[in-house]
């Protein structure tokens, strides 16, 4: 184990602990000097009720689901468009396909996400009614579909774009090298997929950035979905009685904002920042361990 990785200036591990340390210092100062006790400080976390923590747990869970779904979708879409792009070099008929995929994906991406949510929610019911007239879809399917939409549109596009751009805008030399090297596998399609991911490896920094951005966007898409669709988690956990936390922090935050409860709003914001910061640093750390460490300069090198 190379322990020097932990203590580099840009180490995600170190950055996360610096952030936690900053929060602790702020909290300590707040208790030490009561004058600066204002709602925006980290101690507002302690003012949250159990409902908020339940909502936060649901939002976090949904964010991780959306993130992993977006990785799958982004890689599939990027890989497919990349393969079609590479294949189009030999067959001009195929040229239109990657362009169409990109155009369609970009079109969906630029539509305001709240509108996408409303349209896809309505579309789901419409399509369901065509096939199963008079039958109400189970909430679980609706919820999963909406998570899928959230994963596809915002974070999925970010991963897709990183992969597709690495192929479509590959440097000539990189393309020559990838096409010249031995690619294991017997099926031509699988070989092309591997070549696409090899081209992605040439733009590894851009790819790593897309993986962390995808998590930020997953969180954003989940919170917007919660804000737009009332009690979104009732789809997964149907209840007879109204439970406020089933709206997620998006809906609870909206209510708190209407009541001007700044303590609660900033409390949940600090929690979200901690979740986001911690997870993105974990993703950066994994990127560093899996791939990034091979590109680090030696500790002796001072530029």
């Amino acid at each position, binding site marked *: 184990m190379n322990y020097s990785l932990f203590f580099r200036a840009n180490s995600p591990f170190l950055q996360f602990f610096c952030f936690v340390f900053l929060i602790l210092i702020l909290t300590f100062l707040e208790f030490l000097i009561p004058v600066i006790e204002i709602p925006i400080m980290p101690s507002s976390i302690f003012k949250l009720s159990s409902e908020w923590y339940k909502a936060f747990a649901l939002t976090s869970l949904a964010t991780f689901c959306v993130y992993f779904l977006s990785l799958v979708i982004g890689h599939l879409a990027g890989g497919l468009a990349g393969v079609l792009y590479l294949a189009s070099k030999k067959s001009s008929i195929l040229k239109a396909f990657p362009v169409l995929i990109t155009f369609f994906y970009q079109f969906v991406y630029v539509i305001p996400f709240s509108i996408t949510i409303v349209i896809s929610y309505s579309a789901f019911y419409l399509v369901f009614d065509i096939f199963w007239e008079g039958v109400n879809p189970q909430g679980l399917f609706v919820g999963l579909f909406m998570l899928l939409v959230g994963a596809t549109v915002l974070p999925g596009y970010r991963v897709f774009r990183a992969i597709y751009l690495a192929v479509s805008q590959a440097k000539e030399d990189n393309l020559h090298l990838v096409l010249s090297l031995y690619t294991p596998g017997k099926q031509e399609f699988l070989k092309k997929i591997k070549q696409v991911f090899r081209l992605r490896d040439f733009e590894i920094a851009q790819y790593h950035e897309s993986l962390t951005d995808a998590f930020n966007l997953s969180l954003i898409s989940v919170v917007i979905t919660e804000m737009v669709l009332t009690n979104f988690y009732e789809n997964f956990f149907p209840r007879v009685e109204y439970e406020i936390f089933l709206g997620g922090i998006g809906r609870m935050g909206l209510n708190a904002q209407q009541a001007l409860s700044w303590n609660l709003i900033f409390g949940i914001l600090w929690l979200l920042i901690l979740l986001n910061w911690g997870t993105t640093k974990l993703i950066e750390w994994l990127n560093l361990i899996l*791939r990034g460490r*091979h590109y680090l300069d030696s500790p002796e090198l001072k530029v």
Partner: protein
Amino acid sequence: MEFKLLIAESIFLEGDEEKVDLNKNFSICYKLQASPFLIWSFGEKQLTSLTVFQAPTGLGKSVFIKKVFLKLLKDREDIAFCYIPQNPAIPKHWTVAQLAPSNSLWQDFFLKFGASTGNVLARRFLSEFSGGSIKRILVGSSLANLLERNNKLNVLILDETLDSTGFLTWDFVKVCFDYWTAMQSFNNQTNLIKLSFFVVTHLQVPPGIRVISLVKASASVDQVLRVIITNSSL
């Protein structure tokens, strides 16, 4: 001074005046005024051949290869080619196993240039190798690629790839040829397929290797290339 690229029906091979039939072979030559100047030909009879392409720095060797040579080769379905660019960017988190076939003969081939044991070698990342070793791995991987395509004629174009390997370069080329032949026997191939190395290098070339020099093209590289690109669509 007028330069023209010819894909002639018949051209003269350097040294002897044997005519090359383009239906079977592939040749490129510059026409310098009246006399054609051979760049490269597939008119080799032996299984493996080596051609060295030399010119002073800045004359446009790499440009010639990318803009002309590769374009011409792409149009030929009967020729498989691999091209390793000059100083390519290399993703160093790739392992050797990703670039080499898993059979024992290829593993031996990779072991020839400085690694410990076979299993360990496969799991080693490219970041653990020196620059010269990485380039030799790339050459080995390209050879495996060519062999797998099983085309009748194969060209491996190395743009100063071997320059960093120093005095071992020509030994390494010999090892490549040996393994090319050995691999075909290993695969029980009855119709042996040809391999031609087209090497751009600044290294001193030992006697007995055909060297093509582009010294005369230094007058106006742009003009030469423009003419060549125009004519390469022929």
